[in-house]
């Protein structure tokens, strides 16, 4: 599967109601170790209910200036949430459907969180 097919696709709940647009896909490099890097495992998707436009980097916790631009973009994308792979029911050309009991997480992250 190629990622640009997924980006910008419609995300709906289990009853078909529109939840938003898929604006990003999150990977974590914690899969099977290979020669150089470990496998990059799909951890989940980031969904924005309002806007298909780019966040321009302001979804990161450490990106905050210039204040005016940060504020404008965060308002535009308010309500954005992150969903884990386990909560995805199906992925098709038309869109992504989530399971009925999915959890919406905070989409923002800080650099490298190691466990």
């Amino acid at each position, binding site marked *: *599967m*190629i990622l640009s097919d997924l980006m910008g696709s419609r995300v709906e709940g289990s009853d078909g109601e529109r939840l938003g647009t898929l604006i990003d896909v999150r990977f974590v*490099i914690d899969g099977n170790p290979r020669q150089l890097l470990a496998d990059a495992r799909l951890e989940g998707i980031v969904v924005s209910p309002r806007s298909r436009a780019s966040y321009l*980097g302001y979804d990161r916790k450490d990106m905050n200036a210039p204040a005016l631009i940060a504020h404008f973009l965060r308002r535009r994308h308010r309500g954005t*949430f992150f969903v884990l792979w386990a909560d995805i029911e199906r992925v098709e050309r038309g869109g992504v459907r989530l399971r009925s009991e999915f959890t919406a997480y905070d989409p923002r992250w800080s650099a*490298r969180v190691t466990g």
Partner: protein
Amino acid sequence: MRSHRLTTPPPAAGQVLDAQLSLLDRQVLDRTGVPVTTVDDIEVSDVPEGAIPVDAAPPVITAIVTGPVLATRIFGGRLPESRYIRIPWSDVSSVETVVRLGVDGEALDASWTERWVRDHIIRRIPGGRHDPE
């Protein structure tokens, strides 16, 4: 159901990469630091058709894709897979502000156009092989 005050997701056990944010459209440099291409698209392993079983393993990134796929990414449409120019994920050594490979650019499919222009045009112009003075 959806919670109104969003909680932080469980911590990740490795480097976190959001595709659009950290991977797509970044420069790809080879082992010696010479640019090879940009990350035009990303290929992941296949997702099960239809309803995904609850305990299904998540897909992994199989390759960085470049070449004509950039045109379909910008303008839309679908490229047949045979036209993808791939750099396997196993060639990637690190991802920071750029993507660094652990191999030399010469060996890659992705540098074919560069090699062609070099061999058929630039090499034929006198002085091309010398350092600037």
